[in-house]
């Protein structure tokens, strides 16, 4: 394979990583801030993609508006999990699994088949490519002719930055602080007058809204929606968070924590592209992600236990 081919593959991986990074930000809200592992994600990611594809292809909807609709669909899915969890006290993991399983059938119903291609329709990316192509022709400026991968990278980064700024603001507000406190110490914040059912519901809703948005963006960039496109999304999300934490864990500000989630996602997809280039089967990638997450969770525990074991001595120290 030639160098430019590899570079193109890497650029594709980066832009994929950024678009999936929006999903990782959603996972970050539940997993890191709320301290809940929300398994709705696999379903709501695919939901975002399916809804977007159907509205763009069958209803001829503006691709930008389709992103909004997909976000709302994701939020609804998150709200279902939230209601099951808060109003009916179903453990968060189980509530997420129930919604996820239910969404599989719903997604199939929405699409009517297991795969909807976006062949002869506009996406936000193709529109921008066209826009610049038009500009390039009318002004004669050659450099304005962009390729789709570059455009999806730039748009992806733009949206990711907007989302990070939005989350940074949100979690700095009174409501956002109450949300963080809910993940930190539920008893305490309830004693301070916050209805933690509402904060949890809110967090799950916003989180899955972002996941739905990410699903729609990925759908538009890969030009199809597939019933299985969300499978394993939660593990990708957790792996990206773990990778981001390893790379940028020393930075303590909230903004850099959010950024690290997206960076982690990009690195994840780069690793993925590399191992695929090396000839690994794409289906084995899920195993690799699972191993990354499992290792990240196991190592600190194992190291801690080993240290305690190691530090034992029959005679006490002299003090």
């Amino acid at each position, binding site marked *: 394979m030639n160098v430019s081919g590899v570079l193109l593959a890497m650029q594709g991986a980066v832009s994929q990583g950024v678009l999936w990074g929006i999903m990782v930000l959603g996972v970050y809200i539940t997993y890191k801030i709320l301290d809940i592992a929300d398994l709705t994600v696999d379903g709501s990611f695919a939901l975002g993609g399916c809804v977007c594809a159907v509205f763009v292809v069958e209803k001829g909807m503006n691709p930008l508006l389709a992103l909004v609709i997909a976000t709302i669909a994701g939020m609804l899915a998150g709200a279902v999990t939230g209601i099951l969890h808060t109003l009916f006290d179903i453990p968060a993991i189980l509530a997420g699994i129930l919604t996820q399983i239910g969404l599989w059938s719903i997604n199939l119903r929405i699409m009517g088949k297991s795969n909807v291609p976006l062949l002869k329709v506009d996406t936000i990316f193709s529109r921008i490519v066209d826009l610049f192509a038009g500009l390039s022709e009318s002004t004669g400026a050659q450099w304005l002719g962009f390729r789709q991968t570059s455009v999806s990278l730039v748009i992806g980064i733009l949206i990711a930055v907007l989302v990070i700024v939005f989350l940074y603001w949100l979690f*700095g*507000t*009174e*409501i*956002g*602080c*109450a949300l*963080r*406190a809910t*993940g*930190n*110490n539920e*008893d*305490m*914040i*309830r*004693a*301070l*007058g*916050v*209805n*933690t059912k509402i904060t949890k519901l809110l967090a799950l809703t916003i989180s899955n809204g972002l996941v739905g948005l990410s699903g729609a963006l990925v759908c538009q960039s890969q030009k199809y929606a597939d019933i299985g496109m969300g499978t394993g999304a939660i593990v990708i999300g957790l792996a990206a968070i773990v990778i981001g934490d390893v790379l940028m864990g020393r930075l303590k500000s909230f903004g850099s924590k959010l950024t690290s989630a997206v960076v982690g996602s990009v690195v994840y997809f780069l690793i993925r592209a590399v191992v695929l280039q090396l000839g690994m089967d794409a289906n084995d990638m899920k195993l690799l992600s699972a191993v990354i997450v499992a290792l990240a969770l196991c190592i600190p525990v194992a190291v801690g236990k080993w240290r305690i074991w190691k530090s034992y001595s029959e005679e006490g120290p002299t003090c």
Partner: protein
Amino acid sequence: MLTVKNVYKTFNKGTINEKKALCGLDLHLEPGDFVTIIGGNGAGKSTLLNMIAGVYPIDNGMIEIDGVNISRQPEHERAKYIGRVFQDPMRGTAAGMEIQENLALAYRRGQKRTLKWGISKKEKELYAQKLQILGLGLESRMTSKVGLLSGGQRQALTLLMATLIDPKLLLLDEHTAALDPKTAKTVLELTEKIVEENRLTALMVTHNMKDAIRLGNRLIMMHEGKIIYDVAGEEKKKLHVSDLLAKFEEASGGEFANDRMMLS
């Protein structure tokens, strides 16, 4: 101020683990009352405080604060009347958040949370002032995570948070029990000071009978979900630990008061 009327609470009703925790309890507090509560393990002291705070629903009866019937209000709604400090120092603060963020959360107790910024500059000055009162040097560490503080520091902070805006009622459930004697003393002195200066109405559970006698203007003793002894004013001041022990013995049918009570 606070009226608890004929309140019953049974845990695990209808199972073999059924436990009557409160049996038709009546209690009335005047504004400014500082009441200490003593009683053996399982007497229902924590349950009483939890019922007032709304942690669990009551089975029967009524609870009123300042004429408002709060019997069926959820915990987070009652929070606007009630400040609380728990026995466990970990329970009253958010470890992963900054000291000033914790205070900002407490500053908004019982208020509707909005999309306004979670903490303002002016507040920070107020918090620095208030932290100075604690005398623990926390005013210079306002952006430290609370998880870095010791149990005693966290408990003092929780006390400050519970009283940052005057609660109509302050509930203290063995809030010095998990601290070493010296720290416990500091936190108790702070409690006295804050309650006195702000003329708060307070209920304080303790296993330390000397404290129970010395602090506050009224003392109640609980046993098996009921108040079995209630003294106030001069009569309370004249009490001795031995009087209370005798009461205990009487209540538990001659069976000696438990070790934990003896030690204190």
